[in-house]
């Protein structure tokens, strides 16, 4: 017979005593907590799960909210780096002539080590130093910080710099898998420390499972280029699209869309019944130029009654028209009069978007054109509507066409408060471009 040690008996008695004293069953107290469901970490490149974060400073503007102390130099002053922008480190310590940059990784959803062993977390960056010196990386979490140095002997050339999180330390502190890095500081201390020397940084890469980021860098740069090429902005391109749009649309179509591809058809709803025909004409004319091939275009209809038009018609007759055409895209053109509808007109836009997704179609929303001479109050209402619709589309991954940009080059694009035929043609042309872009980056990419 097995002997029960006295310690075990004592522990059992204590547990039982506590349970009886507190009036709670021991079973409940001892029950292990339910396992926490941890979501998979968000990664910038779905195909490259090893990449925790990457920044090449292209197209980000001079300042970034998640970085302090440095500024982006839009023109790379030191070829032969292929890209243009890099980061110019800012002055930090006048005594040692130190330059630096502070990065807040949580602001860009870069969570590390967050459960990953520190020896599996690597940092890679390219630096250009006017004078040889030391690059110091300091990482801070809630409970403290740790750092490591990397000597750079080359001057005035781009030099790769590596760190491993496990190597960072500071007296008693070392990186632990349970830490969550909230702040990264990258310092450059010049060899002579006599004057501030220029220092530039590029291709900041944080990886997991790869000790040296330079092996991964070409693939990362390619992935980044793909994303950069995918990005469209209303200011520059007249419509918006991004990686977020791509992911949201793919998810929406995966959930609700049919397994096989729908008809190559486009459904267009104008802000007035008479707009639909003009939009269809414009789309049909623009499609071949954009190689948007094989598509048919039709306007929204009220069965047996003629064309549909306006937000109310769009909202209620969209499902029937999608059932009729099995369209892959829906173009919804809004107008200032939609902003005046009673209640909350943005709700009608939301319903139209949701109903499109439910039937597996991709909506594209054209915002109302800017109308000159509006009274302050009317302008405020219209702005409010545009903001509400823009936010809504942003949340749902729906591309928005800035009608003002679309009609900029059109001759006499307005007919009072509504778009003229020329204005509608211009919007249709931009919508066709947006469709082509979405087809390439969502529909064909999905397949």
């Amino acid at each position, binding site marked *: 017979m097995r002997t029960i040690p006295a310690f075990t008996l004592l522990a059992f008695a204590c547990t039982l005593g506590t349970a009886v004293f507190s009036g709670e069953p021991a079973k409940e107290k001892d029950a292990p907590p339910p396992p926490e469901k941890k979501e998979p970490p968000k990664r910038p490149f779905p195909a490259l799960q090893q990449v925790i974060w990457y920044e090449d400073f292209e197209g980000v503007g001079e300042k970034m909210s998640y970085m302090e102390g440095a500024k982006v130099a839009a023109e790379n002053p030191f070829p032969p780096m292929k890209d243009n922008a890099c980061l110019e480190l800012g002055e930090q310590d006048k005594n040692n002539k130190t330059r630096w940059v502070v990065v807040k990784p949580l602001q860009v959803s870069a969570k590390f080590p967050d459960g990953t062993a520190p020896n599996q977390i690597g940092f890679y960056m390219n630096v250009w130093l006017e004078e040889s010196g030391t690059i110091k990386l300091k990482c801070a979490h809630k409970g403290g910080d740790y750092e490591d140095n990397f000597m750079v002997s080359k001057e005035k050339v781009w030099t790769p710099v590596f760190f491993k999180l496990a190597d960072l330390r500071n007296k008693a502190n070392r990186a632990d898998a349970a830490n969550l890095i909230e702040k990264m500081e990258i310092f450059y201390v010049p060899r002579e420390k006599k004057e501030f020397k220029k220092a530039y940084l590029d291709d900041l890469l944080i990886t997991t499972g790869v000790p040296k980021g330079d092996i991964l860098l070409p693939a990362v740069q390619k992935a980044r280029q793909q994303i950069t090429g995918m990005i469209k902005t209303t200011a520059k391109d007249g419509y918006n699209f991004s990686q977020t749009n791509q992911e949201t649309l793919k998810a929406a179509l995966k959930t609700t869309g049919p397994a096989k591809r729908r008809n190559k058809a486009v459904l267009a709803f104008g802000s007035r019944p008479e707009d639909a025909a003009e939009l269809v004409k414009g789309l049909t004319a623009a499609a071949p130029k954009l190689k948007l091939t094989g598509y048919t275009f039709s306007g929204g209809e009220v069965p047996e009654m003629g064309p549909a038009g306006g937000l109310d018609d769009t909202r209620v007759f969209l499902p*029937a028209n*999608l059932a009729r055409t099995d369209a892959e895209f829906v173009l919804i053109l809004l107008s200032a009069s939609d902003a005046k509808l*009673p209640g909350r007109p943005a709700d009608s836009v939301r319903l139209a978007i949701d109903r499109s997704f439910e039937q597996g179609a991709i909506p594209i929303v054209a915002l109302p054109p800017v109308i000159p001479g509006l009274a302050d109050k009317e302008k405020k209402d219209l702005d409010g509507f545009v903001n509400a619709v823009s936010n809504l589309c942003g949340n749902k991954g729906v591309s928005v066409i800035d009608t003002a940009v679309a009609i900029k080059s059109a001759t006499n694009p307005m007919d009072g408060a509504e778009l003229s035929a020329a204005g509608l043609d211009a919007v249709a042309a931009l919508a066709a471009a947006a469709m082509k872009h979405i087809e390439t980056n969502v529909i064909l990419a999905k397949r």
Partner: protein
Amino acid sequence: MVVTSSVDRRLLTRMSCRSLIPVFCIFLSCVTHAASEVLYSEDFEKFDVSKPPKDVAISGGGDVTVVDDPARGKVLCIKTAGGAYPGLTFTLDINKVRGGTLKFTVAGKCPGEVAIIADKPWAKPKLVLVAKDKAGKDTYGGGHLEGNKPDWQDLTATFKVGDDIESVQIALRAELAACEVFFDGLKIELEGGGAPAAAGTTPPPANPATPAAAKDPKAVAGKTTTKPLDNTPAGRSPKKIFEDGGMIFGPEIAAALKKAIKPGATPNTILVIGPGLPFKEMDNFKPIGKWQALPLAKELTGPTATPAHLLALLPSFLGKNKPEVVVFFAETTGTRKPTNDERFDWEDLARICKRMGALPVFGVPAAGTQEELRKDLLEGVNLAFAPAVDLKAPSTVPKRIAHLLDLFDRHIFERTPVDAPVAGVIKAPDEE
């Protein structure tokens, strides 16, 4: 009405005889309407803000427009950022109204927020009367609307125009508070004799298309529980609620539905569809009179015919078959969970019907059954301003629908005179 109210109750209690109610209502109507004259009746259907009638002024400080309301057609909309008194002001002919009693009524709603001003709690959207006496002192009367209420609210007030009153104005306006408010169906009546008006000074009705008010005491007939806003057949529709009549109907719904009538619908045809079918008691439904039911459409009935499904299929069916009335039966049994946007789906089914010239009717599951679905459906009915039938006592449902069709014939299509005798077969279900 106030004077006679206590008498009403005593008499009703003592008699306990439903058949005398219409007679009594006619009597009341005689008492209250005998000497009334409508000074203004404005439904805003033809109101042009840029060219208001001569006795109507538009005050600035906000947007005063006429907009489409899904339930009531054209309505007045006042949008303001606050700090002013935008709205419409009706100036009455003092010589005509002096000595009489003004009764003014309007329906209004304020679905959004009304920004309350701390030291001016009275600053709200209002139906307001301003009377100035000889000393220049203002007297105010009327009522205000509450914010965050999407439903139409009735505002009614009376004012005895004393001999010392020099001017009287009645306004629909937002007072100082930032808000968006809607008004419809303004009616200003004069009761009792005033000083004789000088010839040609009586302001004409703002909308000549709106018929003059009721002078016929028979205007209030049947089971009317509220005073009609106007004397049109739609305005004389009986007000019905689930607890009194087993259906939702009334003058405002009738007026809204009347606006939905379009040429091209096949007269006296009714289409019955929805996920609540088959509904045993409707299997052999044969509407009386000229009404005919279209054959059941398989794709539009049964558990798969959810509101979202109907949104996709109903328009083409309506386009081809052009029924005059569509009755939607919601599920009285089953386990379907309403979607997040179910109420909008039901509302939009009604909007599709109205847009395509058919009048929608909704069969609503009884209280205590399908609670979530019922709640959403009733919200949809409310949003769409549509009539509804309670499916509580299934055996009475066909009769209720038949009764509703009779009401449509009288008050909306106007194929039957409002006061024509009610055929025995189509008694109101709760009269049986």
